[in-house]
C-alpha cells in the first residue's frame, strides 16, 4: 500500500513539475531552447534541402515568368533610383544647411531560413545566423518587401525569429494615408490584426500599414501590409482592421536582420 501511494506521488510530481515550470521566467529556458534548436538544425537542413530543390524545379515556369516581370520592373526602378539619388543629394544639402543631425543607417546581416516551427500555435522560423554575427534578441527582421518579424532567441550560429503573424508578436504601426496610430499583432489565422484605431479615422481596404516611430524594435516607415477588412472592435470603442502581411511568410527563404540599437 505504501509503495502504491509513493508511486502515485511520483506520478503527480511528474505532472506538477512541468506545470510549475510554466510560471517561471521564460528566459531561464532560453539556453535549453537554443541548444535543442541548434542540435536539430543540421538534420533539418539535410531533410529540407532536397524538398526545397524539388520545389524550385516544380515551380520553374512560375519563376521564369516572374523573372521576366521583375527584369522589366528592375529597369523602371533603376531609372527611378537615379532620380531619387538626385533628390536625396539635394535633400542632404538642404539638411546640412538647416543643421539637421544625419540619420544613422543600420548595418544589416542577410540570413537564410533553415527551419520552421511545425505547430499551428506559433509562427517561428530558424535562421542560420547567431550571436557570432552580432545578432541580439529583439532585432528587427525584414525582407526587401517589408517587415518579417523580430529575433526571439539567439544561439551562437542560429537564431529564432518570431514572425509578424505569431500571436505573441506586436508592433506599433500607422495607416500610411491618414497617419492613424494603432497596434498590429499576430493571429492564428496567418494575418495580423490592427487595434485601437479611432472610430473617426477613415481607414479603407487596401490602405498600407507601416511601422510607427513609437515602435521600440522597428525603424519608422517599414511596410507591414495592406488592410483587407475593417470592423468595430467588440471589446473597446475603437475600430480594428485585418492586415495581410506584404511578405509571403510561408514561402520566405531569405531575410535581412537590421542591427538596430534597441530603444
Amino acid at each position, binding site marked *: 500500500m505504501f509503495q502504491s501511494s509513493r508511486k502515485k506521488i511520483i*506520478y503527480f510530481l511528474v505532472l506538477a513539475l*512541468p506545470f510549475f515550470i510554466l510560471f517561471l521566467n521564460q528566459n531561464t529556458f532560453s539556453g*535549453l531552447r537554443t541548444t535543442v534548436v541548434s542540435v*536539430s538544425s543540421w538534420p533539418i537542413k539535410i531533410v529540407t534541402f532536397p524538398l526545397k530543390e524539388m520545389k524550385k524545379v516544380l515551380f520553374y515556369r512560375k519563376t521564369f515568368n516572374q523573372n521576366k516581370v521583375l527584369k522589366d520592373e528592375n529597369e523602371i526602378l533603376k531609372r527611378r533610383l537615379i532620380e531619387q539619388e538626385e533628390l536625396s543629394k539635394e535633400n542632404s544639402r538642404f539638411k546640412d544647411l538647416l543643421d539637421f543631425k544625419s540619420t544613422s543607417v543600420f548595418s544589416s546581416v542577410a540570413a537564410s531560413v533553415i527551419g520552421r516551427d511545425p505547430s499551428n500555435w506559433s*509562427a517561428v522560423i530558424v535562421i542560420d545566423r547567431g550571436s557570432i554575427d552580432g545578432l541580439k534578441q529583439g532585432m528587427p527582421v525584414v525582407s526587401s518587401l517589408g517587415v518579417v518579424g523580430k529575433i526571439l532567441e539567439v544561439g551562437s550560429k542560429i537564431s529564432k525569429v518570431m514572425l509578424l503573424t*505569431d500571436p*505573441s508578436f506586436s508592433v506599433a504601426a500607422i495607416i500610411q494615408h491618414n497617419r492613424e496610430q494603432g497596434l498590429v499583432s499576430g*493571429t492564428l489565422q496567418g494575418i495580423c490584426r490592427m487595434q485601437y484605431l479611432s472610430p473617426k479615422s477613415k481607414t479603407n481596404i487596401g490602405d498600407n500599414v507601416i511601422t510607427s516611430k513609437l515602435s521600440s524594435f522597428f525603424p519608422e516607415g517599414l511596410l507591414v501590409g495592406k488592410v483587407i477588412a475593417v470592423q468595430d472592435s467588440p471589446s473597446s470603442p475603437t475600430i480594428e482592421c485585418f492586415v495581410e502581411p506584404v511578405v509571403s511568410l510561408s514561402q520566405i527563404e531569405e531575410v535581412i536582420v537590421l542591427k538596430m540599437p534597441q530603444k
Partner: protein
Amino acid sequence: MKKLFVIIIFSFVLFLIEVAIFQIFGSWFKPSLLVLLVVYSNLKFGIRYGIATSLICGILSDSFGSGVFGAHVVSFISCSYVLIAVKKYFVEFDALSFKLVLAGIFSTLNIISIYFINSMFLKINFGDVFIFVFLPEVAATVAVSPFCVDYLRKCDSKLLN
C-alpha cells in the same frame, strides 16, 4: 536502455518529418506525429517510457515554438495519464477504427490542454483555435495515424530484435 534509445530516435525522426511536411503542404495539413508517438509508446512500452516520450517530444516542440516553455510537455504527459487510465477498457488494439478514434481523441485532448495553458498567458480567440489549429491538425493526424502506427511498429520490432 535500448527502448529509450529507440524512443529518442523516433521522436527526432517524427519531428523532422513534421518540419518537412510543413515545407510541402503548408499550414492546412499538419499532422501531430508526436501525439501519435506518445500514444504508441504508452501502449507499447508502458507508462514510464510514455512519460519519457512525452518529455522528449514536449521539449522538442516547445523549443521551436514561441509560446510558453513546458506547454507541450504538460499536455503530452496529461495525454499519457489519460491513456493509461482508460487503457484497461480497450479491447481491440489492431483494428483500423481503433487507431483512428484514438488518434482523434488524443490530438483533440492535446489541443484542448495547450489551449488552456496558452490562454493563461496569452489572449487567444477560441474560434481561431478551432478553425486554424483544431480542424487541420485533428483531420491530418487521423488521416496519417494508420500508416504512422504501422511504420512505428515495423521499425521498433526491427530495432529492438
